[in-house]
């Protein structure tokens, strides 16, 4: 625009704001911004006025008040005397739990189905097609409700395990109980057995460390878990060193020393030793009173939500995987074969790295969808963020504005961090064109 010099030097006419291309874009933007701010101001003004009419104030003080309700699935310690804030925190953790577990299962199922859809076996390929179409074309809410109904109606109640000749039996060495209240699996416990078979005083191994005292965000950290993780990481590091050394020797001499037993050994032996010292054992669930006691209780609501979300999302992932594999041209495989690579290496060195570049971006947006869909937990009574903060807390405190906006904000943060991770990945695998 160097040619468009203003002949009259410094004089400025208002009409230039519209007709002079130097100012025009700024004008449009400022108008847009003012319009936007006016809209926001209008909404806020309405809100303030409406709330004043209703005699309500806005504030987050209610989060500190006593929640008064119980949550069944507690990843942290919680009682009805705790605050709404802590209840929301537990809800958030439940959301994250089902999201992570769902993404993992959806990926596994999706990849298997996606590969099987390309199977040469006609029947298997057809079944997988039917599966994909069935799940994709029925609303996920219906699947969630249906899977809950299936769990409730098909599995036996705990009372079926009672009596001398029970109608149902625990599986896998009497350690897992499938009931229509959920699945009871053994839980890892720490404590050393005495000579008589009784527990010595420190039955909880190293015990827990409580952080943040009495605050709503307090949580306990299991020292046992930290010790185990530390041992595992140390073992893996040493194992990595051994591998590097083997690489070095191979590079220097051409011969690779056999190291697999060393590499397994440095990881496993300290771990087993540590577990023995801590007195690790599995606490099996046992029928006691109305329910199974002991063990870890995977509740029905969790399982139903988890399975429904996973299988629904897996149908989409399967299509992505299939598309990704089909996107790799046949020439690539043939070229790799011509280079003398074996079938397995063709897959791992040529096809998969390229297919992953196609697969992963849509895969992560499926993860995003799954996480957002987990808010449907409310339909089966899984106490996630929508069940606690935007559910019972909203209802008991009557603070619609604060709870709904806070819930949206939290989901937004989760989504943004997932898509942030996706962007980092995309940049790292982007084709570097020179």
């Amino acid at each position: 625009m160097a040619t468009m010099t203003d002949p009259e030097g410094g004089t400025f006419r208002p009409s230039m704001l519209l007709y002079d291309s130097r100012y025009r874009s700024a004008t449009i933007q400022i108008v847009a911004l003012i319009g936007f701010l006016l809209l926001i101001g209008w909404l806020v003004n309405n809100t303030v006025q409406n709330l004043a009419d209703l005699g309500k104030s806005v504030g987050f003080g209610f989060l500190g008040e006593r929640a008064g309700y119980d949550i069944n699935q507690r990843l942290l310690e919680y009682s009805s005397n705790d605050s709404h804030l802590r209840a929301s925190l537990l809800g958030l953790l439940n959301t994250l739990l089902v999201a992570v577990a769902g993404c993992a299962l959806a990926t596994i199922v999706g990849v298997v189905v996606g590969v099987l859809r390309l199977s040469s076996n006609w029947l298997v390929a057809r079944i997988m097609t039917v599966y994909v179409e069935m799940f994709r074309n029925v609303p996920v809410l219906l699947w969630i409700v249906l899977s809950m109904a299936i769990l409730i109606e098909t599995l036996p109640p705990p009372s079926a395990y009672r009596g001398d000749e029970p109608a149902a039996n625990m599986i896998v060495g009497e350690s897992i109980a499938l009931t229509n209240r959920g699945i009871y699996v053994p839980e890892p416990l720490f404590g050393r057995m005495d000579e008589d078979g009784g527990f010595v005083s420190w039955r909880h191994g190293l015990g827990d460390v409580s952080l943040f005292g009495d605050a709503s965000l307090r949580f306990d950290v299991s020292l046992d878990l930290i010790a185990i993780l530390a041992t595992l990481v140390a073992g893996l590091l040493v194992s990595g060193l051994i591998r590097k050394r083997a690489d070095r020797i191979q590079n220097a001499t051409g011969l690779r020393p056999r190291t697999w037993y060393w590499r397994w050994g440095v990881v496993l032996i300290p771990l087993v030793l540590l577990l023995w010292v801590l007195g690790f054992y599995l606490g099996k669930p046992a029928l006691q009173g109305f329910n199974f006691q002991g063990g870890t209780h995977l509740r029905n609501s969790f399982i139903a939500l988890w399975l429904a979300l996973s299988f629904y999302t897996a149908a989409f992932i399967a299509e992505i995987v299939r598309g990704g594999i089909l996107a790799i041209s046949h020439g690539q495989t043939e070229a790799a074969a011509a280079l003398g690579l074996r079938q397995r290496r063709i897959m791992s060195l040529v096809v998969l790295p390229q297919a992953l570049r196609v697969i992963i971006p849509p895969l992560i947006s499926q993860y995003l969808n799954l996480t957002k869909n987990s808010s449907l937990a409310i339909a089966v009574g899984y106490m996630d963020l929508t069940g606690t903060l935007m559910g019972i807390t909203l209802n008991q405190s009557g603070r619609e504005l604060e709870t709904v906006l806070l819930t949206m904000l939290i989901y937004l943060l989760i989504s943004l961090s997932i898509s942030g991770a996706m962007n980092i990945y995309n940049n790292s695998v982007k084709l570097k064109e020179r």
Partner: protein
Amino acid sequence: MKNSVILGALTVAGFMAGAAQAATLDDVKARGSLKCGSNSGLTGFAAPNANGEWEGFDVAVCRAVAAAVLGDPQAVEFVPTTPKTRFTALASGEVDILSRNTTWTLTRDVDLKFTFVGVNYYDGQGFIVPKALGVSSAKELDGATVCIQTGTTTELNLADFFRVNNISYEPVPIETNAEAQQQYLAGACDTYTTDASGLAATRASFEAPGDHVILPEIISKEPLGPLVRHGDDEWADIVRWTLNALIAAEEFGITSTNIAELSNGTDNPEINRILGTEGTMGEMLGLDAEWAKRAIMAEGNYGEIFEKNIGESTPIGLARGLNAQYKDGGLQYAPPFR
């Protein structure tokens, strides 16, 4: 009405100023229909039938109010609400009256700023268990799995009850009564807790109702009644006295069958005042003289409504109990029409 629908969809939202909230009665009259927040489905209390007509005990209150104000018991728009959306619907003016088995509590009255106009059903939270469980008292439920409907006072009562008695439980929160029933019958919970009326209604629909007992403990007071917004006392009065008229009608033996005869005038001045043949009660309320007569004719008096929707002749089979007239040992007691 229809203009506002289409314009609302097409124009920038929000310029359609309705009348101020203060005069609900004028709004209702201008609109020609009463907007009533109802349950989206609770057996006996509110549910649409196959023809899409709403029926039930709570529904009848709305019909009576519509009959009193507009002269037509069918001039009601039912807005199904969930436990979570009901208060917002009322507060924002989406409905004129909320008749949705809602418990009268201090916070709802004072903090949420609603006026409870009365109690149309005295209820309390109870437990139902299968007989096979061998439980005779709620205090024996230590470690039990309890199904509860979320979004109500029920879960707070439950938490308090188990805390006070120092016993543990596993709550299973459930959105609707139908799902709770399904879980309970399948044995996914040992007991189901909700208002005793709901328990009776639920039990009535079981394949074998005799296999289940409702435990004697009633762990809470649940006065359920219709409510309106704070700040419009004239409207609250209309709803309150419509409800009272239904209750008083039963007390004085005014039924939907004999009302025509009675409204020719009787020896009982109270009946005359209710039916508008004496005094100016209707005008005081801003209605006409026959408001209560129409309200009673809509679905009958309180007792008739009770019997028709949830009484002992229905599958739900609730006894009057606390909801009998005060003369019969119950709590239903209409202030005098004077």
